[in-house]
């Protein structure tokens, strides 16, 4: 019996260790990013890094200002959010309140399919189908622009926004709906004045998670936004995002060099941004549940 | 005059109090349970009788807010201080209120406990299955269908299967927590008949909301009210001339 208890204790220990592994991993990621990335701040200050307007890592001397990259990420993200939030919420409303039977299943499956398609495939389609379309429509020198990125990423964020908004709408008690209808409102009025406000914090969380998805996207964005690390004047110009920079340039840097450290430093920025967004979204989701 | 030997004590409870967090469920219960008797525990809802029952095989341990003072002795050994919960539960089995078969075959339900205890010999396991199902009055109905999923049996059959499952552990004491509450009258009668047969080999403790059932089946009856043991006496005495007014009120239906 004694050895069996020993075995049980060992198993329990392994289970507990795995249980807190998530905490260990998050900490490890942060540590390694810092380990390789902080080195860059020996050559430039944090302010110059975050606010510098020129990203010329291979010039002599190299310039590591990531403002154009931040603006690039920001422009694509804002564009994607502007497109995906209204359409996403509209779809969630339609699917959960109006659609019935077969059409509901088909549409739901279609949206979930988008979530399953790998980002590199969507980037591929964006490159081969969407970019030429935009190039023709707007008479641009190239179809690889921030707008292309926004549209592509909007479609990638929609499944997230739709499914979480759906959950938020489903969590609103039936009583709310029935009370509004009993008072003589049309279903549309009920949705706008009662349902959406009641699901409010859940919808905010959905939007935040959608934003997180968009900011963190790498491959699709790399393939459709043109990779020009300059601050754009309009959305119809090529840009470079934080994520694409890392992916595109890491292959050519020397390990341990300043360029290498600068890319890790961008990683730190991305990690912090996604951390903040996830914390806030989690807050809103829990506020809704309480 | 024939002198009867004094009854041997199987379980002894001394000043047993139970709390769940800040709520006290039992106050200083003291009683003795005799070997091979059926002790019935009756009382209204929230009287503590289920907490009392579950104290006897340490099922209360599952609740993280469970606290206790006092002692419960099985054959003289302290259940909580001298014995491990696993060995306690093997010696003191329990049948729950709702039939709870595991989603396994009938055979695997019965052999679940013995296999986990280390029994590997297929012959001995088969014998165990037959013996337990016979003792639970279920063997004739399922003997050629042992592979069938247990969930396909009727409610009454499932409950008897749960009894067989407990018997397969070869316990010394069997606890019954309102075992017939979800059953029709015929199944109830079968379960009560089984209990009376089991008395020959085991010590039984029965918690029930049905005072008539307690009267039919038990040798002695304990009346619980609001966490206290009000009265404990032979069945005949309790139901015809109880000492405490509250016992009388409960039995005659004035409350409960």
């Amino acid at each position, binding site marked *: 019996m004694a050895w069996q208890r020993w075995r*049980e204790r060992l198993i*329990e220990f392994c*289970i*507990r260790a795995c*249980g*807190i*592994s*998530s*905490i260990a*991993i998050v900490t*490890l*990621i942060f540590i*390694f*990013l810092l*380990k390789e990335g902080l080195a860059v701040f020996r050559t430039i200050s944090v302010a110059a890094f975050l606010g510098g307007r020129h990203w010329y890592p291979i010039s002599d001397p190299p310039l590591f200002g990531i403002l154009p990259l931040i603006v690039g990420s920001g422009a694509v993200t804002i564009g994607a959010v502007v497109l995906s939030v209204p*359409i*996403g919420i*509209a*779809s969630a409303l339609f*699917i959960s309140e*109006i659609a019935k039977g077969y059409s509901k299943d088909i549409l739901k*499956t279609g949206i979930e*399919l988008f979530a399953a*398609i*790998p980002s*590199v*495939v969507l980037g*591929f*389609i964006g490159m*081969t189908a969407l970019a030429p379309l935009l190039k023709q429509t707007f008479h641009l020198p190239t179809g690889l622009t921030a707008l292309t990125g926004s549209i592509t990423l909007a*479609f990638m964020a929609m499944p997230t926004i739709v499914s979480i908004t759906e959950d938020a709408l489903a969590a609103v008690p039936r009583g709310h709906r029935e009370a509004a209808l009993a008072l*003589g409102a*049309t279903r*549309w009025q009920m949705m706008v004045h009662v349902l959406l406000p009641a699901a409010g914090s859940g919808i905010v969380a959905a939007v935040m*998670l959608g934003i997180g998805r968009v900011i*963190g996207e790498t491959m699709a964005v790399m*393939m459709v936004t043109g990779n020009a690390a300059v601050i754009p004047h309009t959305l119809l110009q090529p840009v470079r995002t934080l*994520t694409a920079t890392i*992916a595109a340039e*890491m*292959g050519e840097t020397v*390990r341990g060099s300043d360029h290498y450290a600068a890319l890790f430093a961008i990683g730190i920025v*991305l*990690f912090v941004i*996604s*951390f903040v967004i996830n*914390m806030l979204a989690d807050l809103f989701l829990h506020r809704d549940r309480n | 005059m024939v002198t009867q030997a004094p009854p041997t004590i199987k379980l002894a409870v001394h000043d047993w109090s139970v709390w769940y967090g800040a709520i006290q469920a039992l106050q200083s219960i003291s009683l003795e349970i005799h070997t091979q008797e059926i002790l019935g525990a009756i009382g209204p809802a929230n009287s503590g009788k289920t907490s009392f029952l579950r104290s006897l095989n340490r*099922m209360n341990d599952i609740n*993280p807010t469970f606290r206790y003072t006092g002692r419960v002795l099985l054959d003289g050994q302290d259940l909580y201080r001298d014995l491990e919960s696993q060995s306690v*539960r093997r010696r003191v089995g329990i049948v*729950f209120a709702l039939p*709870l078969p*595991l*989603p396994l075959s009938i055979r695997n339900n019965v052999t*679940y*406990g013995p296999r*986990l205890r280390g029994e590997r010999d297929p012959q001995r396991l088969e014998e165990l299955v037959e013996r337990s199902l016979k003792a639970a009055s279920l063997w004739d109905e399922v003997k050629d269908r042992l592979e069938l*999923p247990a*969930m396909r049996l009727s409610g009454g059959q499932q409950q008897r299967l749960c009894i067989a499952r*407990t018997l397969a552990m070869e316990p010394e004491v069997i606890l019954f927590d309102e075992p017939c509450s979800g059953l029709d009258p015929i199944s109830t009668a079968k379960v009560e008949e089984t209990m009376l047969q089991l008395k020959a080999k085991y010590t039984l403790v029965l918690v029930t909301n049905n005072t008539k059932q307690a009267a039919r089946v038990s040798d002695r009856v304990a009346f619980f009210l609001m966490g206290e043991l009000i009265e404990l006496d032979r069945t005949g005495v309790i139901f015809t001339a109880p000492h405490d007014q509250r016992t009388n009120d409960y039995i005659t239906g004035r409350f409960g």
Partner: protein
Amino acid sequence: MWGQPWRRALAIQRVAFTLLFLATCLVGLTALVVIGVICVKGAGALSWEFLTKMPTQGMRAGGIFPAIIGTIELVGLTVFFALPIGVAAAMYLTEYSSENWLTRLARLAIVNLSGVPSVVYGLFGLGLFVIFCRFGTSLLAGALTLAIMILPVIITASEEALRSVPKSFREVSLSLGASHWQTTRHAVLPFAIPGIMTGTILGIGRAAGETAPILFTVAAFYLPRLPRSIFDQAMALPYHLYVISTQIPHIPTTQRYGTALVLLLLVLSLNVLAVVLRARFRRKRQW
């Protein structure tokens, strides 16, 4: 009530509902259109030769066999690491702990991990597995990186599966004298396996399609042979698609679409499998 204001409100509703319908179609049907386009344009490339031969002439001819095998091996190794750790972590959260600050922290960490950008995972994999652990660019480094990336998926699915097992099973098992681990192993885990499996398949689909985490940790572009060990580099479908569409000119369009199609079919069939299994197990469930 049936006067002008009501009729106006109904008209507004009709317009609104039509817009909602169009919005939903935009999303749902575009997915089907995208898949359709890839199928149509890529089907031409799908020949036996394409799928089973090595590439030649610097990727301009031959097949994508090593990329397919590389993806399969990579994903297999990923699950080998991610599944036990993920299921154990889920068991900790449901069976071996009560809700306290530590479990809340663990859940917060899981939520965070699921939001980390995939390229940051790539950086982490580079820093930890390729460099610090000295595994080099290898299947091992790539699989470990992907394993960490899909860990939240597996933990969440496993937790849900474990929670869906009725509490009474645990009580019954304990009442028969089983220990805590025996109860988890024999009265809970077997009945949670369908849910765990579904979640794992979805995780596999995710891992198979990711590019950024494998960019710096395993992927090789032109490697016309199969990987020799887990310490070897490998080709992989997502990376392959990326390179032939952005960096190599003069590859026939059908080939590009063909590669996209193979990857798409792989990932989608995994997702469909997961959905079908989930439905089947829900029907067969006995409780």
